């Protein structure tokens, strides 16, 4: 294996898990996420010389992000039309027939995940990068190609929407307990 191949396996391969999680949240589909990650990995191999002195994980996530966006534009352009911050995503409604508390807890986690899934992609990506990848505003700004101020406003907006859907879920849980 040549030096580039060795660098690829040392620097990029350890972060394929993060790459997949990110692509999976953006494409919302296992199969498409695999295709995107594979494509992004090949791109990262080509661009590997450009990785100098920065962290590999956010660097790779930036490539995954661009690959996914290109892919979405080609395959699901409708999803990107809601890219601006002002569209209102649908908040998932809780089911009305979950009988037990453990079921409610499970339902809470499921509904939170559905609520994140329902966010417009531009909000979803900042939430995933911040909460699941623990990246800084600066890193998120670089990955998503947006100013830090936009990262802040999108993050605030995404959390506000998720907070609202959690309240809807909790209200439903309270109703269950009062029965």
């Amino acid at each position, binding site marked *: *294996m*040549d030096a580039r*191949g060795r660098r*690829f*396996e040392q620097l990029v*391969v350890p972060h*394929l*898990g993060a*790459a*997949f*999680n990110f692509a*999976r*949240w953006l494409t919302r589909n*296992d199969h498409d*996420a*695999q295709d995107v*990650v*594979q494509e992004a*990995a*090949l791109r990262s*191999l080509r661009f590997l010389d450009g990785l100098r002195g920065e962290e590999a994980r956010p660097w790779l996530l930036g490539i995954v992000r661009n690959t996914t966006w290109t892919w979405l534009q080609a395959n699901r352009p409708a999803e990107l039309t809601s890219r601006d911050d002002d569209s209102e995503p649908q908040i998932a409604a809780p089911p009305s027939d979950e009988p037990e508390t453990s079921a409610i807890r499970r339902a*809470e*986690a499921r509904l*939170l*995940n559905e609520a*994140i899934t329902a966010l417009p992609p531009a909000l979803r990506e900042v*939430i*995933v990068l*911040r*909460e*699941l990848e623990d990246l*800084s*505003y600066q890193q998120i700004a670089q990955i998503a190609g947006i100013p830090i101020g936009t990262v*802040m*406003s999108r*993050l*605030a907006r995404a*959390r506000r929407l*998720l*907070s609202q859907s*959690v309240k809807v879920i909790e209200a439903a849980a309270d109703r269950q307990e009062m029965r």
Partner: protein
Amino acid sequence: MNRDDELRLHAYLDGELGATEAVDFERRLAEDAELRKGLVELRAIGERIRNQARYHEAPSHLRTRILARTRRAEPRRRERFVLWPALAGIAAATVVLAAWFGPALIQQAVGWQPPLQEVLDAHLRANLGTHWVDVVSSDRHTVKPWLSAHLGFSPNVPDLSEQGFTLIGGRLDVLDAKPVAALVYQRRQHMISVFVWPGEPAVASPSAQRRGYHMIGWGANGLTYWAVSDLNENELRDFARLLSSAT
């Protein structure tokens, strides 16, 4: 709460305020009940997202697939695969298939030693137990000597990565009470076992097929080779052709 305060609240929780800014903000928090309420709510939703949002685990074959593609154009060295988890899924599917096989293959395998059924069973066993290889290596110069040292014969172990077949490694197996070599290659998520033992086959190019598994045999240099896989027949034929023509 005004917009600036809201953004500052997020930045404070995310550790994105500078030290002096954070001190100022904490002073304001102490004085402002609404701000404090906002902080509690925000902290709650943040914890909830971190605890409950799903971290999607990459399917284990994805890494193997990517490595197979990125290594394709390069000369081979010793490489390590984390193989076992990759095979768990295949194994699960095989449990179902194995139950269907029954003795049907033996009829097709008349005159063969060992019976084709055993050859197929050995492939399925590797799937079930996820014991694919004793020597994990994509370097043919590692696999070949290891096998010949253990078996007393030396199967051909070509590097077919450029053609999209990744060498995973080799192992010893026993068919009909005789030790044989098993080479393991991978094409996408499909595993290919190649069983090798001394003696040419009785028929020139035998093949068999049952319920999605293809088996293709050939003889070369006094050895019999049998390739077994759930890969589609055309690709397995390509593989058999490549393997038998490589030296």
